[in-house]
């Protein structure tokens, strides 16, 4: 085992906090990453937690992790492996044995590294480090539990309650390790526990003691200093994808001058969108927590008929349940945003893990010819932009839009520069341009082919819509064969026309290279980092990343045709590749797929792609 005791200057570092799901690792990680962001670092975080709320204490099933990647350069991913791993018990060590970099620091609570702890974690010996074959690491053994108890000795807390604060001792130590002043952390804690002054005092005491502990013992490990980022000046916060989706919808409703409505049923990992919007009664957001997924979308369809910006949020199993109602929105032609925060599937699958395997369901998962717009966000912060654009397209083109995100960007956070709505395009609900005596519910805008959205309460424009096929202008029920063909065609063309209103596909990296990586949605950070790494090593490589899936950008065929080797990388069995093959002629697509409930790692992409270069 190597030992060193120096300050290392770093451009970037990856820290992973891991412990029992009751150990407060998510809070610890969030505080540390926010603290770093305030100090001028870029951040990207990724929580990795079990589906169980409290699995048996000390077992592998209950291990909850939070990884943060911080640095002075553009940080695109939460990082592959950790430079510093903080483990609260032997199970957390075992669960993360492959998540630590060679030479990295493992800080562990020596008070939990005992026979009972080893047994719960399934170790056969009393030396977990040897048993796991961990050699090239720096160990920092800290009596976290004992020190926390000592820190709170004499306070009102019994020792069991006191132990709950040991995550703050760990946070104090990590702040010392990274030369972070802890006063900002105290500010955050003060806000979080403002209504629980005793817990606040205890947490701050333990945090400060943890910091001083590191200082005093001069632990024989390296400490780190990370330079400030030189990103664009401005006001920033850290935001996760679910919150950014909620904010994007609020912004779009305001811009369009519409009331925002959400109908939703609790489902992991999408529920935070509902939580965020339910808390925004101050802005007038109306949220129904519905009796089931179908009612979630049905109430939203009703709200859209009544003239609101209507949204339903869900994850894969919920999207399946909503299929028939989505078809109604397609058929009746109503604006609707359906947010699908994808998770591991099929069926209940891996609720807390990430995957991109709902793509084909979003594109095709309905009866009949049922086209709609599909958009995918690619980073936690651009969930704001694509939620905004999904709402804009839904409203202006009078169509349902499915916005795909996933567990990785929904729960992961990134730095977000607070936007000004002046920088965002106007959203104009298409109202009838003719007098009520001439108006018919399926008259269309000649450019976009949308019908006009007239809502109950408007004098003179009474009309009826529905799920039955209808006459192409009057909206009256029609089973005429030619009319049906016409309506099927016009619903498809309306969606295709959206391509005239979205950006063209651009290439990142070496445009002139032979090899093109193709991705969509949440894999953007990993793909771009892989491209950067390959280019730094002198390789020529390009990336085409898609946010607009249906319709594809107008120049997709032309751009993709320029490359002789195209590798479509996605976290599913090859769904986007399958889709591209159906849309793009004369191009051969190779695939790199991973379906492990985890995001890509940059290194696996670099290794795989290098073989082509």
């Amino acid at each position: 085992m190597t030992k060193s005791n120096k300050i290392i200057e770093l451009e970037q570092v990856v820290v992973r906090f891991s412990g029992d799901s009751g150990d407060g690792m998510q809070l610890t990680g969030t505080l540390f990453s926010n603290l770093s962001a305030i100090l001028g670092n870029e951040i990207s975080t990724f929580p990795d937690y079990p589906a169980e709320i409290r699995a048996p204490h000390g077992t592998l099933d209950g291990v909850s992790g939070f990884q943060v990647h911080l640095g002075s350069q553009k940080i695109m991913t939460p990082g592959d492996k950790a430079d510093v791993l903080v483990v609260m018990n032997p199970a957390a060590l075992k669960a993360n044995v492959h998540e630590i970099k060679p030479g990295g620091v493992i800080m562990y609570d020596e008070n939990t590294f005992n026979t009972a702890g080893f047994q719960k974690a399934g170790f056969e010996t009393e030396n977990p480090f040897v048993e796991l074959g961990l050699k090239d690491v720096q160990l920092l053994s800290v009596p976290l539990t004992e020190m926390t108890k000592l820190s709170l000795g004499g306070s009102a807390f019994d020792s069991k309650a006191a132990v709950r604060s040991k995550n703050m001792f760990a946070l104090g130590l990590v702040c010392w390790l990274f030369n972070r002043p802890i006063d900002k952390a105290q500010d955050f804690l003060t806000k979080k526990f403002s209504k629980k002054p005793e817990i606040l005092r205890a947490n701050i005491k333990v945090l400060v003691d943890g910091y001083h502990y590191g200082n005093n013992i001069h632990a024989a490990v390296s400490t780190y200093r990370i330079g400030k980022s030189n990103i664009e000046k401005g006001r920033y916060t850290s935001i996760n994808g679910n919150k950014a989706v909620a904010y994007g919808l609020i912004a779009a409703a305001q811009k369009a001058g519409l009331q925002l409505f959400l109908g939703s049923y609790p489902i992991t990992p999408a529920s935070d969108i509902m939580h965020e919007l339910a808390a925004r009664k101050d802005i007038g957001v109306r949220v129904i927590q519905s009796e089931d997924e179908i009612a979630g979308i049905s109430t939203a369809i009703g709200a859209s008929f009544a003239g609101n910006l209507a949204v339903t949020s869900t994850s894969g199993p919920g999207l399946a349940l909503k299929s028939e109602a989505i078809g109604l929105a397609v058929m009746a032609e109503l604006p609707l945003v359906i947010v699908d925060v994808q998770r591991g599937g099929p069926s209940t699958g891996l609720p807390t893990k990430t995957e991109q395997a709902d793509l084909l369901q979003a594109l095709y998962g309905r009866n009949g010819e049922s086209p709609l717009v599909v958009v995918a966000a690619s980073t936690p912060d651009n969930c704001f932009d694509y939620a905004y654009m999904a709402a804009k397209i839904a409203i202006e083109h009078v169509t349902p839009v499915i916005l795909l995100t996933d567990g990785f960007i929904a729960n992961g956070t990134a730095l977000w520069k607070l936007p000004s709505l002046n920088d965002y395009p106007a959203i104009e609900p298409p109202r009838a341009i003719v007098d009520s005596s001439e108006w018919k519910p399926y008259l269309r805008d000649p450019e976009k082919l949308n019908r006009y959205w007239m809502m109950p309460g408007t004098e003179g424009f009474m009309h009826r819509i529905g799920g039955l096929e209808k006459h192409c202008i009057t909206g009256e029920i029609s089973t005429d064969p030619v009319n049906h063909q016409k309506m099927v065609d016009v619903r498809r063309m309306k969606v295709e026309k959206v391509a005239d209103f979205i950006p063209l596909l651009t290439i990142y990296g070496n445009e002139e290279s032979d090899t093109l990586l193709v991705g969509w949605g949440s894999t953007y950070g990993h793909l771009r980092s892989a491209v950067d790494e390959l280019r730094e090593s002198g390789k020529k490589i390009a990336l085409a990343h898609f946010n607009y899936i249906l319709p594809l950008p107008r120049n997709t065929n032309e751009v993709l045709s320029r490359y002789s080797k195209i590798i479509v990388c996605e976290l599913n069995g090859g769904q986007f590749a399958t889709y591209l093959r159906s849309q793009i002629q004369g191009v051969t697509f190779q695939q790199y797929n991973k379906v492990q409930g985890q995001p890509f790692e940059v290194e696996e992409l670099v290794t795989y792609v290098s073989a082509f270069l």
Partner: protein
Amino acid sequence: MSLPSYIPQDFKSDQYVRWCPGCGNFAILNAIYKALAEVGVSPAQTAVISGIGCSSRLSYYMNTYGFHTIHGRATAIATGVKVANPALSVWQFTGDGDCLAIGGNHFIHALRRNIDINIVLHNNEIYGLTKGQFSPTSPKGLVTKSSPFGTIERPFKPADLIFGAGGTFFARTVDVDIPTSVEVMVEAAKHHGTSVVEVLQNCVIFNDGAYKAISTKELRIENTILLKQGEPMLFGKNQEKGLVLDGFNLKTVMIGKNGITEHDVLIHDATTPDFFLHQRLAAMTGPDLPIAMGVIRNVSEPTYDEELVNQIHEVQSNSSVKTFEDLLESIDSWEI
């Protein structure tokens, strides 16, 4: 200033009505036109939501805003309409299959929330549009295409679901009795909260005669009781029969016999929160007891849409966050 007044014709669309000749829905539709004219909300402020089934075609025949949706979901869609714009008068027309089978979950939860919508439940005890399968209200033993040896299922009584789910308004009528239908629909419209009007409806093709015992005025006089708020529960040609409570059950008595006078008869109170008697009344099926018609339950409780709007106003009066820009101001952020 006088309010605009409407005639039934104002609510009639120009669409050809496509039900089978003799269908009970024609009478229900006429009652609706009359009721809406009497209620006096303008067609532009009225939204008619329906699901799938014969009765659900009704939205096309109304000169209001109308939405013919998908099977079972009309209650949820109507809920969304009302929450999005509580100023609208929202009506849902639905059948026993649409409302109580595929849509049962939405139905009970609308009642639980007491959202202010008016549900007219056309109960013909059969699936008509799919050509004659038994429904959740078909009587046990009914022989249909999907129960060739008689259904072995126990039927729902819609009223039991309504009371069990916390429903605040329940009325019953029969298709051919247009005056009573108009009267209870108007009461349903006045009620704040989820109102359900069960219309016993004859399906002339697949379940003809299901309500034969009450199909004529003469039969209704003997076999039904039209309940009126605050009035004694009397029925029969000369109001010679009355209802009394006998233990936990209702009993028909003859006025003037065994010393029974009009004063011994129960007085109808639709407004009492306890639904014990409402349930007993709704459960009467004849022949010893009359089938209850009219407004059986009409209880005042806060509605979901009112509560939601009130909560929004309350939060708004205590918050400085009014816009997206205010929201950004209110969150943790820092200068870089």
